[in-house]
């Protein structure tokens, strides 16, 4: 059945790659359409993309990003208090 095996391989290449391209091409269209529709429906403040992406590319960002604002607030308070004591 080796010939069958080879033909199975070709089938996988053909239908597999075909599906991948068809699906992602469709997704390009859907995504573009979705963005247009959504941005018409909701007027929304855009987020700053770069910092968000840097976050994503850094595995341990999750914990850090939840702690830092709190720390900054505490420090702000500490400094204000410190200054007022002088």
């Amino acid at each position, binding site marked *: 059945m*080796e*010939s069958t*095996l*080879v033909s*199975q*391989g*070709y*089938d*996988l*290449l053909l*239908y*597999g*790659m075909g*599906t*991948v*391209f068809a*699906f*992602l*091409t*469709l*997704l*390009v269209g*859907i*995504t*573009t359409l*979705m*963005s247009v529709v*959504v*941005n018409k*429906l*909701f007027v*929304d*403040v*855009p*987020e*700053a*993309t*770069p910092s*968000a*992406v840097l*976050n*994503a*590319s850094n*595995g341990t*960002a*999750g*914990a850090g990003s*939840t702690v830092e604002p709190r720390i900054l607030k505490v420090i702000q308070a500490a400094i204000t208090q410190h200054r007022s004591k002088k």
Partner: protein
Amino acid sequence: MENLISLWASSGLAQMQSGQLIMMLVGLGLLFLAISKGFEPLLLVPIGFGTILANIPGAGFDAAPVYDALGHLESPGGLLYYIYHAGIETGLFPLVIFMGVGAMTDFGPLLANPKTLLLGAAAQVGIFTTILGAVALSHFGILDFSIREAASIGIIGGADGPTAIFVTSKLAPDLLGAIAVAAYSYMALVPIIQPPIMRALTTPAERQIRMEQLRPVTKAERIVFPLSLLVLVALLLPDAAPLLGMFCFGNLMRESGVVNRLSDTAQNALINIVTIFLGLGVGSKMSAEKFLNPETMGILALGAVAFCIGTASGVLMAKLMNSVSKHKVNPLIGAAGVSAVPMAARVANKVGLEANSQNFLLMHAMGPNVAGVIGSAVAAGVMINLVSGM
């Protein structure tokens, strides 16, 4: 005296077979690569350690539990047995990891430039040509792979660990060790494998192409995108729904902004717990009879080919897109389409900076990079569907 004999007979030295010894060295080798060379340590440390544990003669890490006739437990199974059967054979661990990866993924750059999805599609050519290679090796009698095994080998080219483990645990569980090791090793080798191919296929002028700044993406788009992807998968490709469904779920938890507790846990405690156990469980499949054979050499060779072809087809697709569109893309970002997030995107950025020290491609490369994750999950779904029917 009898006890002394019993102690000696049960010692590792007395029971050790040469295969086990070699596999323990393989495990130490993986740990060396992970710790000293920085090869994807989050997975290769547990896999390497699991390899050693699974090959300790007489330790029973891999032993099945024994029940008496009434169903009472006579002797419990080993740790790796339970991990493998509960988390890997069922597919649960890769799916939970995919949820966590979804919660860590930022689709912003992809949404700003959706046509980079095509780069993520092109890079999957590596998967399917590798299948053809495996089939050819089998056809010419060099090695012996079934179509299920060939498909599992191909998925190494997806450059996505959990996807490779999910597919292999379904189609060819005996190859799980070799394929997982190949997938993670080559992902770690991306900075070495990709640049020569990228340079060979592009001109200096192409490498210097500056891309326009990405438009800002709104919160609403970010929320609706995972749902759109989910619906499309549901309608067209249900076989890819387990992987992509959990991926979209994690991403929706992230972007919705209303369940930050859950998103944080999915990105931290939960994915870390599952990663430890997934790695150990993969290690349990690293036995001498399954790993020390010519097929493993073939798998490693074919995996390298898959990465190279994937890289090349991503770059070539970008050049093709430039030939028909007026919005030029820098073809280097095509190489990021293999996924290996975020390593491949960083490689694209680095090679870009070599050509022009002011040309920052990182953000642009993140688009095809995450598109590659979607692409290989789609490929996984198609293969599981087609191969199961063959």
